[in-house]
């Protein structure tokens, strides 16, 4: 828990510093037309730096007392989370090539079969039916174009 706490606090600290640095570049004072571009982000950045430092201090004090806090996630919870995160990321990377619907069909099939241990019939049925109906709904009925990827146009020719 504390490690994650420190990580997030440092992340916020870094974001605060980025905001301040960039605001200094843009100018954070009073310009020709009122407050300059960096005016608002400058104070936001300062505030973020202060808040995250205070959080860090709090966590450090807890750490010094030797209290590790409760675990961030229950024992063995990381595996199912990664089983969602990694295939989902892979799906998006594949989308760049074959388009979202085909990538999603592969992803659905993979997840249901490998993680959910669901029967082949259901797996194939769902992973074909869902992308097909969403394709018809979005691309054809509502005319919301979804990513086709590099080769998507040739893969779904209709």
């Amino acid at each position: 828990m504390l490690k994650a706490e420190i990580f997030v606090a440092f992340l916020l600290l870094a974001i605060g510093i980025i905001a301040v640095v960039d605001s200094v570049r843009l100018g954070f004072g009073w310009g020709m037309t009122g407050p300059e571009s960096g005016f608002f982000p400058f104070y936001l950045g300062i505030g973020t730096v202060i808040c995250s430092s205070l959080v860090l201090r709090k966590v450090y004090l807890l750490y010094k007392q030797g209290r590790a806090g409760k675990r961030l996630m229950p024992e063995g919870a990381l595996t199912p989370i990664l089983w969602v995160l990694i295939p989902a990321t892979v799906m998006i990377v594949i989308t760049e090539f074959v388009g979202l619907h085909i990538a999603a069909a592969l992803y659905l099939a993979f997840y249901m079969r490998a993680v959910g241990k669901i029967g082949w019939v259901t797996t194939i049925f769902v992973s074909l039916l869902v992308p097909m109906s969403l394709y018809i709904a979005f691309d054809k009925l509502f005319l919301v174009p979804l990513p086709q990827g590099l080769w998507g146009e040739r893969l779904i020719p209709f």
Partner: protein
Amino acid sequence: MAGDIQNLMMGLSIALQPYNITVAIIGLVLGIIVGVLPGLGGANGVAILIPVVVTMPATTGVILLSSIYWGALYGGSITSILFNIPGEPWSVATTFDGYPMAKSGKAGKALVIAFLAHGVGAVVGVIMLTFFAPIIAEFALKFGPAEIFAVMMLTFSAFVGLGGTSPLKTVAAILFGFILAAVGMDIVSGQLRMTFGFVELMGGFNFIVAVIGLFGLGEIFLTVEEGLNIEGIKARVGLKDIREGLAEIIRYPKALIMGSLIGCWMGLKPGGATPASFMAYGFCKQSYSNKDEFGKGAPAGIIAPEAAAHGAGTSATLPMITLGIPGSPTMAVIMGGLMIFGLQPGPMLFKEHADFVWGLIASCWVGNFLGFFLVLGFAPIFAAVLRIRFAIILPIIVYVCAIGAYAVNNRMIDVYWMIIFGVLGYLFKKLDYPLAPMVLALVLGDMAEQAMRQALIMGQGSPLIFFKPPLALPIMIAALIIFFWPLISAWKRK
């Protein structure tokens, strides 16, 4: 008053057009499903459909979005009563008594009580909306940039002072949201901020993508972490249940009134629905003599939090359309939908697009009314959604989230952002950084900055403009008191 009723009638004539009713029913069904499924809440359900809504006329589109919201409000109670899983955070309090009652074989009755309480909460909320919204809007017309900024300060102070989580982390989350909003082109000078030469960052962060990531994926990570083994109670809603439910509702008018009023009051302030349901439950428990029945299936323990949750959900519409300040993440997304149609929520909306505003208000009446009968009639069918293995539902949710994130701007980079926001949402949730104020800051960022800069120009650089009587001063003082409330109350205790 008479004028309001006349306007409402005009709105009803829009909301009751067959096309709009069909859209409302579709929205409600989707909303109920979204509310039933863990890992897919109202905010994301609305966010995913934004790209579809753009293809419709404005009023119809907003009817669809708000119907999803009403549906999600109703749907949340189905899961908390039958499965002991709160589908939405504001239905946690319902599990205390709803699930025990369902377990004792009165599942149908528990559902009916919950839906009736919802219905009453909604009616009270909508009445308030109908008659107070025009007054507040009229008043808000007097607001200049300084007053608008003060109102925003008040909004965010409410999260800090009354939010219940660590004030320090709340402030950090709000500032983080504002910084994200500042990325990209500066609306006033046209300069690029915090993009560091990356073309992808020039467009800034879209809050809809953030909502889908934070609330959609983040919620899914939380759900799989808990390991899903859903065991539900089978329920059928028969005429006998409806009769018994009605009788119970009539027997506990105090719980009903208390719940609705607490809900409507809390709904006005941001992030209200969840604390409202807990507060209503707590107050209700205190005020009845049969305290030990609470937690074992007391009807009043279902009525109060449900009425409060729906009352708060409905009254959250009020600050959104009158001031342009959404009370909840879902309302923020609905407001995003309005802005896509080129409708700037705020007092001018009442003047410039009266037909739209009254159509929306009327659709609150229609949507809540229809929603009530939908859940009453089909609750068992909706509950069946949860009996589908989660390993099938989960990848579909991820897929739909990806569609939503992409379609907002037709940019692939947004889908990657969605994943990153998902991880961030999970971490934030775990570490008690509140997500709702962060999303609101992201939504209101540009508006807040513009108001601040304009006000400062008007005041020639003096920050005293934010304390200008008669309007800005009291709002700002209230904001400061609420902001420092955690410190004040700590000091008072000593």
